[in-house]
Protein backbone atom coordinates (compact mmCIF):
# COMPACT_ATOMS: atom_id res chain seq x y z
CA UNK A 1 0.00 0.00 0.00
CA UNK A 2 1.40 3.38 -1.02
CA UNK A 3 1.49 5.93 1.78
CA UNK A 4 2.52 9.59 1.97
CA UNK A 5 5.11 9.50 4.73
CA UNK A 6 7.52 11.98 6.31
CA UNK A 7 11.19 10.99 6.64
CA UNK A 8 11.15 11.06 10.42
CA UNK A 9 7.95 9.00 10.50
CA UNK A 10 9.54 6.46 8.15
CA UNK A 11 12.44 6.22 10.57
CA UNK A 12 10.08 5.46 13.47
CA UNK A 13 8.19 2.89 11.38
CA UNK A 14 11.47 1.28 10.32
CA UNK A 15 12.53 1.02 13.94
CA UNK A 16 9.28 -0.74 14.85
CA UNK A 17 9.66 -3.05 11.87
CA UNK A 18 13.16 -3.92 13.12
CA UNK A 19 11.74 -4.82 16.53
CA UNK A 20 12.76 -1.74 18.47
CA UNK A 21 11.04 -1.87 21.86
CA UNK A 22 12.83 0.95 23.67
CA UNK A 23 13.28 4.59 22.79
CA UNK A 24 14.83 7.28 24.99
CA UNK A 25 15.38 10.77 23.65
CA UNK A 26 15.52 14.49 24.16
CA UNK A 27 13.73 16.93 21.85
CA UNK A 28 15.84 18.64 19.21
CA UNK A 29 15.16 19.93 15.71
CA UNK A 30 15.04 18.50 13.14
CA UNK A 31 14.77 15.00 14.66
CA UNK A 32 11.92 15.55 17.16
CA UNK A 33 9.17 13.90 15.11
CA UNK A 34 11.00 10.58 15.44
CA UNK A 35 10.55 10.66 19.21
CA UNK A 36 7.02 12.03 18.88
CA UNK A 37 6.12 9.06 16.70
CA UNK A 38 7.80 6.64 19.09
CA UNK A 39 5.90 8.22 22.02
CA UNK A 40 2.69 7.42 20.15
CA UNK A 41 3.58 4.03 18.72
CA UNK A 42 5.52 2.24 21.46
CA UNK A 43 3.11 2.27 24.46
CA UNK A 44 0.21 0.46 22.73
CA UNK A 45 2.73 -2.19 21.66
CA UNK A 46 4.06 -2.57 25.20
CA UNK A 47 7.39 -0.98 24.30
CA UNK A 48 9.09 1.66 26.40
CA UNK A 49 9.24 5.32 25.47
CA UNK A 50 10.91 7.75 27.84
CA UNK A 51 11.85 11.39 27.44
CA UNK A 52 15.10 11.91 29.30
CA UNK A 53 16.71 15.05 30.73
CA UNK A 54 19.40 15.36 28.07
CA UNK A 55 21.13 13.43 25.30
CA UNK A 56 23.71 11.80 27.56
CA UNK A 57 20.86 10.46 29.66
CA UNK A 58 19.02 9.31 26.54
CA UNK A 59 21.85 7.17 25.25
CA UNK A 60 22.67 5.99 28.79
CA UNK A 61 19.10 4.69 29.16
CA UNK A 62 19.26 3.12 25.68
CA UNK A 63 22.45 1.24 26.57
CA UNK A 64 20.97 0.11 29.90
CA UNK A 65 17.86 -1.16 28.11
CA UNK A 66 19.95 -2.92 25.46
CA UNK A 67 21.71 -4.82 28.23
CA UNK A 68 18.37 -6.31 29.23
CA UNK A 69 18.10 -7.62 25.66
CA UNK A 70 15.84 -4.91 24.22
CA UNK A 71 16.42 -3.43 20.77
CA UNK A 72 16.88 0.20 21.69
CA UNK A 73 17.42 3.50 19.93
CA UNK A 74 17.63 7.25 20.29
CA UNK A 75 17.39 10.09 17.78
CA UNK A 76 18.99 13.50 17.89
CA UNK A 77 20.68 16.22 15.90
CA UNK A 78 24.05 18.07 15.88
CA UNK A 79 24.42 19.45 19.42
CA UNK A 80 22.78 16.38 20.94
CA UNK A 81 24.93 14.10 18.82
CA UNK A 82 28.01 15.90 20.16
CA UNK A 83 26.81 15.21 23.72
CA UNK A 84 26.26 11.54 22.94
CA UNK A 85 29.84 10.88 21.91
CA UNK A 86 30.94 9.67 25.34
CA UNK A 87 28.20 7.07 25.43
CA UNK A 88 28.80 6.02 21.82
CA UNK A 89 32.32 5.20 22.97
CA UNK A 90 30.91 3.35 25.99
CA UNK A 91 28.58 1.32 23.76
CA UNK A 92 31.50 0.42 21.49
CA UNK A 93 33.70 -0.53 24.45
CA UNK A 94 30.97 -2.70 25.97
CA UNK A 95 29.83 -4.23 22.63
CA UNK A 96 26.30 -2.92 23.13
CA UNK A 97 23.90 -3.07 20.18
CA UNK A 98 21.97 0.20 19.78
CA UNK A 99 20.95 2.65 17.08
CA UNK A 100 21.58 6.39 17.09
CA UNK A 101 19.82 8.49 14.46
CA UNK A 102 21.36 11.90 13.80
CA UNK A 103 19.31 14.22 11.61
CA UNK A 104 22.05 16.60 10.56
CA UNK A 105 21.69 20.38 10.70
CA UNK A 106 24.19 23.13 10.01
CA UNK A 107 26.90 23.46 12.64
CA UNK A 108 29.09 24.02 14.47
CA UNK A 109 27.27 24.80 17.71
CA UNK A 110 23.60 25.79 17.42
CA UNK A 111 24.27 26.70 13.79
CA UNK A 112 21.08 26.58 11.75
CA UNK A 113 18.74 24.28 13.67
CA UNK A 114 16.23 23.66 10.88
CA UNK A 115 18.50 23.67 7.84
CA UNK A 116 20.09 20.61 6.22
CA UNK A 117 23.76 19.69 6.43
CA UNK A 118 25.99 16.65 6.13
CA UNK A 119 28.68 17.85 8.49
CA UNK A 120 28.65 14.96 10.98
CA UNK A 121 30.25 12.30 8.77
CA UNK A 122 33.60 12.48 10.51
CA UNK A 123 32.12 12.98 13.98
CA UNK A 124 29.99 9.87 13.49
CA UNK A 125 33.19 7.93 12.90
CA UNK A 126 35.72 9.62 15.15
CA UNK A 127 33.71 11.71 17.61
CA UNK A 128 34.37 9.55 20.65
CA UNK A 129 37.90 9.37 22.03
CA UNK A 130 40.02 6.37 21.15
CA UNK A 131 39.85 3.86 18.32
CA UNK A 132 36.74 1.79 17.83
CA UNK A 133 34.85 -0.15 15.18
CA UNK A 134 32.08 1.96 13.62
CA UNK A 135 29.20 1.54 11.23
CA UNK A 136 27.60 4.69 9.83
CA UNK A 137 24.71 4.59 7.36
CA UNK A 138 22.80 7.28 5.52
CA UNK A 139 19.74 7.60 3.28
CA UNK A 140 18.56 9.74 0.38
CA UNK A 141 14.81 9.12 0.31
CA UNK A 142 11.94 8.43 2.65
CA UNK A 143 11.92 4.80 1.54
CA UNK A 144 15.66 4.58 2.19
CA UNK A 145 15.13 6.05 5.64
CA UNK A 146 12.78 3.21 6.51
CA UNK A 147 15.02 0.53 5.05
CA UNK A 148 18.27 1.89 6.44
CA UNK A 149 16.74 2.17 9.91
CA UNK A 150 15.96 -1.55 9.75
CA UNK A 151 19.48 -2.16 8.41
CA UNK A 152 20.98 -0.08 11.24
CA UNK A 153 19.28 -2.39 13.76
CA UNK A 154 20.27 -5.50 11.81
CA UNK A 155 23.93 -4.48 11.71
CA UNK A 156 23.98 -3.39 15.35
CA UNK A 157 22.49 -6.74 16.39
CA UNK A 158 24.92 -8.66 14.16
CA UNK A 159 28.09 -6.87 15.21
CA UNK A 160 27.11 -5.78 18.75
CA UNK A 161 27.87 -2.16 17.95
CA UNK A 162 26.29 1.26 18.22
CA UNK A 163 25.22 2.02 14.63
CA UNK A 164 24.69 5.60 13.51
CA UNK A 165 22.15 6.54 10.85
CA UNK A 166 22.76 10.00 9.40
CA UNK A 167 19.71 11.82 8.04
CA UNK A 168 19.42 15.56 7.45
CA UNK A 169 16.86 18.29 8.06
CA UNK A 170 15.41 18.08 4.55
CA UNK A 171 15.08 14.32 4.47
CA UNK A 172 13.63 14.28 7.99
CA UNK A 173 10.85 16.69 7.05
CA UNK A 174 10.29 15.66 3.44
CA UNK A 175 7.20 13.64 2.50
CA UNK A 176 7.17 11.04 -0.27
CA UNK A 177 4.83 8.37 -1.50
CA UNK A 178 6.30 5.10 -0.36
CA UNK A 179 5.42 1.43 -0.50
CA UNK A 180 7.41 -0.35 2.17
CA UNK A 181 8.80 -3.71 1.22
CA UNK A 182 9.40 -6.62 3.54
CA UNK A 183 12.89 -6.69 5.00
CA UNK A 184 14.42 -9.51 7.00
CA UNK A 185 15.03 -8.69 10.62
CA UNK A 186 18.07 -9.89 12.55
CA UNK A 187 18.07 -10.32 16.33
CA UNK A 188 21.21 -10.77 18.40
CA UNK A 189 22.06 -14.38 19.12
CA UNK A 190 21.92 -15.65 22.70
CA UNK A 191 24.37 -18.20 24.04
CA UNK A 192 22.91 -21.66 24.57
CA UNK A 193 23.99 -21.62 28.21
CA UNK A 194 25.34 -19.19 30.77
CA UNK A 195 27.79 -21.86 31.89
CA UNK A 196 31.32 -20.86 30.91
CA UNK A 197 30.06 -18.19 28.53
CA UNK A 198 32.41 -15.27 28.00
CA UNK A 199 30.27 -12.16 27.55
CA UNK A 200 32.73 -10.11 25.48
CA UNK A 201 34.44 -10.68 22.16
CA UNK A 202 31.58 -12.97 21.14
CA UNK A 203 28.80 -12.29 18.64
CA UNK A 204 26.47 -13.90 21.17
CA UNK A 205 24.87 -11.65 23.75
CA UNK A 206 23.86 -12.55 27.30
CA UNK A 207 21.45 -9.96 28.75
CA UNK A 208 21.65 -8.94 32.39
CA UNK A 209 19.27 -10.76 34.69
CA UNK A 210 19.56 -14.16 33.05
CA UNK A 211 21.68 -16.09 35.46
CA UNK A 212 25.16 -15.11 34.25
CA UNK A 213 26.38 -12.50 36.71
CA UNK A 214 29.17 -10.58 35.06
CA UNK A 215 30.64 -7.12 34.89
CA UNK A 216 29.98 -4.62 32.12
CA UNK A 217 32.54 -1.83 32.19
CA UNK A 218 33.92 0.94 30.01
CA UNK A 219 37.32 0.20 31.50
CA UNK A 220 39.64 -1.94 29.41
CA UNK A 221 38.59 -5.52 30.11
CA UNK A 222 39.02 -9.09 28.96
CA UNK A 223 36.51 -11.54 27.49
CA UNK A 224 35.02 -12.24 30.92
CA UNK A 225 34.46 -8.55 31.65
CA UNK A 226 37.19 -8.31 34.23
CA UNK A 227 39.11 -5.10 34.24
CA UNK A 228 42.49 -5.65 32.61
CA UNK A 229 44.71 -2.67 32.05
CA UNK A 230 47.82 -4.16 30.57
CA UNK A 231 47.71 -7.82 29.65
CA UNK A 232 46.81 -7.26 26.02
CA UNK A 233 43.17 -8.29 26.36
CA UNK A 234 41.76 -4.87 25.52
CA UNK A 235 44.05 -4.56 22.51
CA UNK A 236 43.04 -8.04 21.38
CA UNK A 237 39.29 -7.37 21.73
CA UNK A 238 39.49 -4.03 19.93
CA UNK A 239 41.54 -5.35 17.01
CA UNK A 240 39.29 -8.37 16.68
CA UNK A 241 36.20 -6.16 16.44
CA UNK A 242 37.79 -3.78 13.93
CA UNK A 243 39.21 -6.63 11.83
CA UNK A 244 35.81 -8.30 11.74
CA UNK A 245 34.22 -5.17 10.29
CA UNK A 246 37.04 -4.68 7.80
CA UNK A 247 36.70 -8.28 6.65
CA UNK A 248 32.98 -7.79 6.08
CA UNK A 249 33.12 -4.23 4.73
CA UNK A 250 31.80 -5.38 1.34
CA UNK A 251 28.79 -7.00 2.98
CA UNK A 252 28.10 -3.92 5.08
CA UNK A 253 28.61 -1.56 2.14
CA UNK A 254 25.40 -0.38 0.51
CA UNK A 255 25.87 1.64 -2.66
CA UNK A 256 23.90 2.62 -5.77
CA UNK A 257 25.60 2.81 -9.13
CA UNK A 258 24.02 5.09 -11.72
CA UNK A 259 25.39 5.37 -15.29
CA UNK A 260 28.86 4.39 -14.12
CA UNK A 261 29.72 1.82 -16.81
CA UNK A 262 31.33 4.23 -19.27
CA UNK A 263 31.59 7.30 -17.03
CA UNK A 264 34.58 9.56 -17.39
CA UNK A 265 33.13 12.08 -14.93
CA UNK A 266 32.13 10.46 -11.67
CA UNK A 267 30.15 12.01 -8.87
CA UNK A 268 30.49 10.33 -5.51
CA UNK A 269 27.73 11.54 -3.22
CA UNK A 270 25.31 10.45 -0.51
CA UNK A 271 22.18 11.38 1.37
CA UNK A 272 19.97 14.20 0.15
CA UNK A 273 22.77 15.53 -2.10
CA UNK A 274 22.91 12.28 -4.08
CA UNK A 275 19.43 13.04 -5.43
CA UNK A 276 20.64 16.29 -6.96
CA UNK A 277 23.79 14.55 -8.24
CA UNK A 278 21.62 11.99 -10.03
CA UNK A 279 19.71 14.79 -11.76
CA UNK A 280 23.05 16.41 -12.65
CA UNK A 281 24.14 13.14 -14.31
CA UNK A 282 20.98 13.22 -16.47
CA UNK A 283 21.62 16.84 -17.40
CA UNK A 284 25.23 16.15 -18.40
CA UNK A 285 24.35 12.96 -20.28
CA UNK A 286 21.86 15.01 -22.36
CA UNK A 287 24.83 17.16 -23.38
CA UNK A 288 26.86 14.11 -24.34
CA UNK A 289 29.12 14.15 -21.27
CA UNK A 290 29.67 10.65 -19.92
CA UNK A 291 28.78 11.33 -16.30
CA UNK A 292 27.90 8.80 -13.61
CA UNK A 293 27.10 8.61 -9.91
CA UNK A 294 28.27 6.35 -7.12
CA UNK A 295 25.85 6.86 -4.24
CA UNK A 296 27.06 5.74 -0.83
CA UNK A 297 24.48 4.47 1.65
CA UNK A 298 27.18 3.11 3.95
CA UNK A 299 29.71 5.79 4.91
CA UNK A 300 31.71 3.75 7.43
CA UNK A 301 33.36 1.39 6.95
CA UNK A 302 34.26 2.99 3.62
CA UNK A 303 33.66 0.53 0.78
CA UNK A 304 37.34 0.77 -0.18
CA UNK A 305 37.72 -1.48 -3.27
CA UNK A 306 34.57 -0.11 -4.86
CA UNK A 307 35.37 3.56 -4.31
CA UNK A 308 38.93 2.90 -5.44
CA UNK A 309 38.04 1.10 -8.68
CA UNK A 310 35.29 3.56 -9.64
CA UNK A 311 37.60 6.47 -8.90
CA UNK A 312 40.61 5.13 -10.80
CA UNK A 313 38.57 4.41 -13.96
CA UNK A 314 37.38 8.03 -14.12
CA UNK A 315 39.00 11.12 -15.64
CA UNK A 316 37.68 13.33 -12.86
CA UNK A 317 35.72 12.92 -9.65
CA UNK A 318 33.47 15.47 -7.98
CA UNK A 319 32.21 14.90 -4.44
CA UNK A 320 29.13 17.04 -3.76
CA UNK A 321 28.23 17.18 -0.06
CA UNK A 322 26.81 19.60 2.50
CA UNK A 323 30.08 20.11 4.35
CA UNK A 324 33.51 21.35 3.37
CA UNK A 325 34.99 18.15 2.04
CA UNK A 326 34.62 15.34 4.59
CA UNK A 327 33.85 12.47 2.20
CA UNK A 328 35.96 14.17 -0.49
CA UNK A 329 38.91 13.59 1.83
CA UNK A 330 38.10 9.88 2.00
CA UNK A 331 37.68 9.62 -1.78
CA UNK A 332 40.89 11.51 -2.50
CA UNK A 333 42.79 9.05 -0.31
CA UNK A 334 41.49 6.20 -2.51
CA UNK A 335 41.39 7.84 -5.94
CA UNK A 336 45.00 7.29 -6.98
CA UNK A 337 45.99 9.73 -9.73
CA UNK A 338 42.43 10.70 -10.65
CA UNK A 339 41.83 14.37 -9.79
CA UNK A 340 39.19 14.69 -7.07
CA UNK A 341 37.23 17.88 -6.55
CA UNK A 342 35.21 18.62 -3.43
CA UNK A 343 31.97 20.53 -3.93
CA UNK A 344 30.96 21.66 -0.48
CA UNK A 345 28.23 23.84 0.96
CA UNK A 346 27.46 24.88 4.54
CA UNK A 347 24.97 27.74 4.16
CA UNK A 348 21.86 25.72 4.96
CA UNK A 349 20.69 25.33 1.36
CA UNK A 350 20.85 22.22 -0.77
CA UNK A 351 23.16 21.81 -3.75
CA UNK A 352 21.08 22.10 -6.94
CA UNK A 353 21.49 19.77 -9.93
CA UNK A 354 22.64 22.62 -12.19
CA UNK A 355 25.31 23.63 -9.65
CA UNK A 356 26.58 20.06 -9.47
CA UNK A 357 26.51 19.78 -13.27
CA UNK A 358 28.55 22.93 -13.75
CA UNK A 359 31.04 21.73 -11.14
CA UNK A 360 31.30 18.54 -13.23
CA UNK A 361 32.02 20.48 -16.42
CA UNK A 362 34.67 22.53 -14.64
CA UNK A 363 36.25 19.38 -13.19
CA UNK A 364 36.56 17.82 -16.65
CA UNK A 365 38.49 20.92 -17.72
CA UNK A 366 40.75 20.56 -14.74
CA UNK A 367 39.47 23.77 -13.17
CA UNK A 368 40.31 23.44 -9.51
CA UNK A 369 37.81 26.13 -8.56
CA UNK A 370 34.76 23.92 -8.95
CA UNK A 371 33.26 25.54 -5.90
Amino acid at each position, binding site marked *: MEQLIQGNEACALGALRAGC*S*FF*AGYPISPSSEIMEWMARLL*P*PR*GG*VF*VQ*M*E*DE*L*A*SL*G*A*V*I*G*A*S*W*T*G*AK*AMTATSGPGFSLMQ*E*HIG*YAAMTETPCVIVDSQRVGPSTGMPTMPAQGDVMQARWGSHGDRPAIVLTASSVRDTYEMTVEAFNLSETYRLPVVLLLDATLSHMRENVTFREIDVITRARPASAEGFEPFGSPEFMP*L*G*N*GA*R*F*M*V*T*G*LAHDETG*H*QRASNGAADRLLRRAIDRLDAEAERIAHTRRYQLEDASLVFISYGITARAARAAVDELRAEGIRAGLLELLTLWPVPDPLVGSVARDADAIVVPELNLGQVALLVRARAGATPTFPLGRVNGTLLRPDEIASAGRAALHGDRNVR
Partner: protein
Amino acid sequence: MRRGEDLRRYLRQEAMPNVWCPGCGHGNVMTALTKACDATQLDLDNTVVVGGIGCASRMPFFLNTNAMHTTHGRALTFATGIKLARPDLTVIAVMGDGDALAIGGNHLIHACRRNIDLTALILNNEIYGMTGGQLAPSTPQGMRSATSPFGSIEMPFDTVELALAAGATYVARTTTFDFDEMPRLIQAALAHPGFSLIEILTQCPTYFGRLNKLGAGRALLDYEKDMTEPLETLTREDLAGKLPTGVFRDEIRPEYTRRYAALCERARKGARD
Protein backbone atom coordinates in the same frame (compact mmCIF):
# COMPACT_ATOMS: atom_id res chain seq x y z
CA MET B 1 22.13 -10.46 60.38
CA ARG B 2 24.57 -13.23 59.62
CA ARG B 3 28.25 -13.21 60.38
CA GLY B 4 30.87 -11.97 57.92
CA GLU B 5 31.75 -15.43 56.65
CA ASP B 6 28.25 -15.96 55.28
CA LEU B 7 28.25 -12.63 53.51
CA ARG B 8 31.04 -13.71 51.18
CA ARG B 9 28.56 -15.11 48.70
CA TYR B 10 27.54 -11.53 47.96
CA LEU B 11 31.09 -10.65 46.96
CA ARG B 12 32.83 -11.39 43.66
CA GLN B 13 35.87 -13.12 45.06
CA GLU B 14 37.81 -13.16 41.80
CA ALA B 15 37.70 -9.35 41.65
CA MET B 16 39.41 -8.97 45.02
CA PRO B 17 41.38 -7.25 46.39
CA ASN B 18 39.28 -4.12 46.13
CA VAL B 19 40.74 -0.79 45.07
CA TRP B 20 40.07 1.18 48.23
CA CYS B 21 42.82 2.71 50.39
CA PRO B 22 43.46 1.50 53.95
CA GLY B 23 41.06 3.33 56.26
CA CYS B 24 38.60 4.22 53.48
CA GLY B 25 34.94 3.93 54.46
CA HIS B 26 33.66 2.52 51.18
CA GLY B 27 34.33 -1.07 52.25
CA ASN B 28 32.19 -0.48 55.34
CA VAL B 29 29.35 0.62 53.11
CA MET B 30 29.79 -2.46 50.94
CA THR B 31 29.62 -4.64 54.04
CA ALA B 32 26.42 -2.85 55.04
CA LEU B 33 25.01 -3.40 51.56
CA THR B 34 25.77 -7.12 51.68
CA LYS B 35 24.09 -7.33 55.11
CA ALA B 36 21.01 -5.58 53.69
CA CYS B 37 21.04 -7.95 50.69
CA ASP B 38 21.22 -10.87 53.07
CA ALA B 39 18.45 -9.59 55.32
CA THR B 40 16.13 -9.13 52.32
CA GLN B 41 17.29 -12.43 50.77
CA LEU B 42 17.95 -10.51 47.57
CA ASP B 43 17.97 -12.63 44.42
CA LEU B 44 21.43 -11.91 43.05
CA ASP B 45 20.50 -13.10 39.56
CA ASN B 46 17.77 -10.49 39.39
CA THR B 47 19.75 -7.64 40.88
CA VAL B 48 21.83 -5.13 38.94
CA VAL B 49 24.29 -2.82 40.67
CA VAL B 50 25.23 0.17 38.55
CA GLY B 51 28.14 2.49 39.29
CA GLY B 52 29.35 5.69 37.71
CA ILE B 53 33.02 6.63 37.84
CA GLY B 54 35.07 7.20 40.97
CA CYS B 55 36.13 5.30 44.08
CA ALA B 56 32.58 4.59 45.28
CA SER B 57 31.42 3.66 41.79
CA ARG B 58 33.90 0.78 41.74
CA MET B 59 31.67 -1.12 44.15
CA PRO B 60 29.84 -3.08 41.39
CA PHE B 61 33.14 -4.82 40.58
CA PHE B 62 33.20 -6.48 43.96
CA LEU B 63 29.56 -7.53 44.26
CA ASN B 64 28.42 -10.91 43.03
CA THR B 65 25.45 -9.55 41.08
CA ASN B 66 24.82 -8.37 37.55
CA ALA B 67 27.04 -5.32 37.49
CA MET B 68 27.51 -2.30 35.30
CA HIS B 69 30.29 0.24 35.67
CA THR B 70 29.25 3.12 33.45
CA THR B 71 30.38 6.71 32.81
CA HIS B 72 31.08 9.60 35.17
CA GLY B 73 27.85 10.96 36.62
CA ARG B 74 25.52 8.93 34.43
CA ALA B 75 24.90 5.77 36.47
CA LEU B 76 21.27 6.71 37.06
CA THR B 77 20.58 7.05 33.34
CA PHE B 78 21.75 3.47 32.68
CA ALA B 79 19.88 2.31 35.78
CA THR B 80 16.72 4.02 34.49
CA GLY B 81 17.00 2.23 31.14
CA ILE B 82 17.52 -1.14 32.82
CA LYS B 83 14.59 -0.65 35.21
CA LEU B 84 12.21 0.58 32.50
CA ALA B 85 13.04 -2.36 30.25
CA ARG B 86 13.01 -4.94 33.07
CA PRO B 87 10.86 -3.59 35.95
CA ASP B 88 11.18 -6.95 37.72
CA LEU B 89 14.90 -6.40 38.35
CA THR B 90 16.17 -4.80 41.55
CA VAL B 91 18.43 -1.95 40.46
CA ILE B 92 20.90 -0.28 42.81
CA ALA B 93 23.03 2.71 41.81
CA VAL B 94 26.21 3.33 43.79
CA MET B 95 27.78 6.74 43.30
CA GLY B 96 30.23 9.10 44.91
CA ASP B 97 29.50 12.71 45.82
CA GLY B 98 31.29 14.22 42.83
CA ASP B 99 29.70 11.60 40.59
CA ALA B 100 26.13 12.10 41.82
CA LEU B 101 26.09 15.79 42.78
CA ALA B 102 28.44 17.51 40.29
CA ILE B 103 28.62 15.89 36.88
CA GLY B 104 25.54 13.76 37.57
CA GLY B 105 23.46 16.36 39.39
CA ASN B 106 21.00 16.73 36.54
CA HIS B 107 20.34 12.99 36.33
CA LEU B 108 19.97 12.79 40.11
CA ILE B 109 17.19 15.37 40.34
CA HIS B 110 15.33 13.87 37.40
CA ALA B 111 15.52 10.35 38.82
CA CYS B 112 14.09 11.76 42.07
CA ARG B 113 11.35 13.57 40.14
CA ARG B 114 10.31 10.45 38.19
CA ASN B 115 10.10 8.40 41.37
CA ILE B 116 11.37 5.34 39.51
CA ASP B 117 12.00 2.32 41.74
CA LEU B 118 15.79 2.52 42.02
CA THR B 119 17.92 2.62 45.15
CA ALA B 120 20.66 5.25 45.01
CA LEU B 121 23.53 5.12 47.47
CA ILE B 122 25.60 8.30 47.47
CA LEU B 123 28.87 7.73 49.26
CA ASN B 124 29.87 11.23 50.30
CA ASN B 125 33.49 11.61 51.38
CA GLU B 126 33.38 15.36 50.69
CA ILE B 127 36.16 15.19 48.12
CA TYR B 128 37.22 13.62 44.80
CA GLY B 129 39.26 10.56 45.73
CA MET B 130 40.14 8.80 42.51
CA THR B 131 41.50 11.88 40.76
CA GLY B 132 43.60 12.97 43.70
CA GLY B 133 41.62 14.98 46.25
CA GLN B 134 39.96 17.87 44.41
CA LEU B 135 37.06 20.05 45.59
CA ALA B 136 33.61 18.44 45.41
CA PRO B 137 30.20 20.14 45.52
CA SER B 138 29.90 18.50 48.95
CA THR B 139 33.16 19.83 50.39
CA PRO B 140 32.28 21.92 53.46
CA GLN B 141 33.19 25.60 53.39
CA GLY B 142 36.71 26.32 54.54
CA MET B 143 37.96 22.78 53.91
CA ARG B 144 41.05 22.18 51.85
CA SER B 145 41.42 20.08 48.77
CA ALA B 146 43.91 19.88 45.91
CA THR B 147 41.92 22.59 44.11
CA SER B 148 40.97 24.62 47.17
CA PRO B 149 44.41 24.92 48.80
CA PHE B 150 43.32 28.07 50.67
CA GLY B 151 40.04 26.56 51.84
CA SER B 152 36.78 26.27 49.94
CA ILE B 153 34.61 29.37 49.53
CA GLU B 154 31.84 27.36 47.83
CA MET B 155 28.46 26.52 49.34
CA PRO B 156 28.14 22.74 49.40
CA PHE B 157 24.96 20.97 48.38
CA ASP B 158 22.80 19.48 51.09
CA THR B 159 22.11 16.16 49.36
CA VAL B 160 19.07 15.38 51.49
CA GLU B 161 17.40 18.76 50.92
CA LEU B 162 18.13 18.43 47.22
CA ALA B 163 16.56 14.97 47.00
CA LEU B 164 13.53 16.03 49.04
CA ALA B 165 12.93 19.07 46.85
CA ALA B 166 13.37 17.00 43.70
CA GLY B 167 10.70 14.52 44.79
CA ALA B 168 12.48 11.38 46.01
CA THR B 169 10.07 9.33 48.11
CA TYR B 170 12.60 7.70 50.45
CA VAL B 171 15.42 9.93 51.66
CA ALA B 172 17.87 9.12 54.44
CA ARG B 173 21.29 10.11 55.65
CA THR B 174 23.71 8.08 57.71
CA THR B 175 27.45 7.72 58.23
CA THR B 176 30.00 4.93 58.28
CA PHE B 177 30.26 5.63 62.02
CA ASP B 178 26.67 4.38 62.30
CA PHE B 179 27.74 0.89 61.35
CA ASP B 180 24.59 -0.87 62.54
CA GLU B 181 22.21 1.74 61.14
CA MET B 182 23.60 1.57 57.59
CA PRO B 183 22.28 -1.93 56.73
CA ARG B 184 18.88 -1.18 58.27
CA LEU B 185 18.46 1.95 56.16
CA ILE B 186 19.67 0.20 53.00
CA GLN B 187 17.25 -2.63 53.67
CA ALA B 188 14.39 -0.15 54.00
CA ALA B 189 15.49 1.63 50.83
CA LEU B 190 15.60 -1.65 48.88
CA ALA B 191 12.09 -2.48 50.06
CA HIS B 192 10.76 0.98 49.20
CA PRO B 193 8.62 0.97 46.02
CA GLY B 194 9.91 4.20 44.50
CA PHE B 195 13.08 6.22 44.20
CA SER B 196 15.08 5.77 47.39
CA LEU B 197 18.22 7.69 48.18
CA ILE B 198 20.63 7.33 51.07
CA GLU B 199 23.49 9.72 51.56
CA ILE B 200 26.24 7.97 53.48
CA LEU B 201 29.03 10.10 54.88
CA THR B 202 32.20 8.10 54.51
CA GLN B 203 35.83 8.80 55.23
CA CYS B 204 38.67 9.50 52.82
CA PRO B 205 41.86 9.38 54.88
CA THR B 206 44.12 9.61 51.85
CA TYR B 207 42.92 13.03 50.71
CA PHE B 208 40.24 14.62 52.88
CA GLY B 209 41.85 13.53 56.13
CA ARG B 210 45.41 14.31 55.09
CA LEU B 211 44.79 17.65 53.34
CA ASN B 212 42.69 18.88 56.27
CA LYS B 213 44.99 17.42 58.95
CA LEU B 214 42.09 15.46 60.40
CA GLY B 215 44.01 12.22 60.73
CA ALA B 216 43.13 8.78 59.36
CA GLY B 217 40.29 6.24 59.66
CA ARG B 218 39.38 6.31 63.34
CA ALA B 219 39.82 10.08 63.68
CA LEU B 220 37.65 10.61 60.60
CA LEU B 221 34.90 8.46 62.08
CA ASP B 222 34.98 10.81 65.06
CA TYR B 223 34.76 13.73 62.63
CA GLU B 224 31.63 12.17 61.13
CA LYS B 225 30.19 11.56 64.58
CA ASP B 226 30.86 15.15 65.63
CA MET B 227 29.37 16.71 62.52
CA THR B 228 26.11 14.75 62.65
CA GLU B 229 23.23 14.30 65.06
CA PRO B 230 20.25 11.93 64.81
CA LEU B 231 17.21 13.73 63.44
CA GLU B 232 14.91 12.81 66.31
CA THR B 233 17.19 14.24 69.01
CA LEU B 234 17.68 17.54 67.22
CA THR B 235 15.81 20.76 67.80
CA ARG B 236 16.05 23.57 65.29
CA GLU B 237 18.59 25.35 67.49
CA ASP B 238 20.77 22.26 67.71
CA LEU B 239 20.94 22.09 63.93
CA ALA B 240 23.44 24.91 63.67
CA GLY B 241 26.58 23.39 62.27
CA LYS B 242 25.27 19.80 62.50
CA LEU B 243 24.01 17.53 59.76
CA PRO B 244 20.94 15.56 60.79
CA THR B 245 20.95 11.80 60.15
CA GLY B 246 18.04 9.41 59.87
CA VAL B 247 15.03 9.05 57.59
CA PHE B 248 13.72 12.35 56.21
CA ARG B 249 10.97 11.01 53.98
CA ASP B 250 9.40 7.60 53.60
CA GLU B 251 6.14 7.83 51.72
CA ILE B 252 4.39 5.99 48.93
CA ARG B 253 3.67 7.89 45.74
CA PRO B 254 2.86 6.41 42.33
CA GLU B 255 6.00 4.74 41.01
CA TYR B 256 7.18 5.37 37.44
CA THR B 257 7.30 1.84 35.98
CA ARG B 258 3.83 1.13 37.39
CA ARG B 259 2.50 4.38 35.98
CA TYR B 260 4.12 3.45 32.68
CA ALA B 261 2.48 0.02 32.66
CA ALA B 262 -0.89 1.69 33.29
CA LEU B 263 -0.19 4.14 30.46
CA CYS B 264 0.56 1.23 28.09
CA GLU B 265 -2.74 -0.35 29.06
CA ARG B 266 -4.60 2.91 28.37
CA ALA B 267 -2.78 3.35 25.06
CA ARG B 268 -3.57 -0.23 24.05
CA LYS B 269 -7.28 0.23 24.76
CA GLY B 270 -7.23 3.61 23.03
CA ALA B 271 -5.63 2.04 20.02
CA ARG B 272 -8.42 -0.54 19.89
CA ASP B 273 -11.28 1.97 20.23
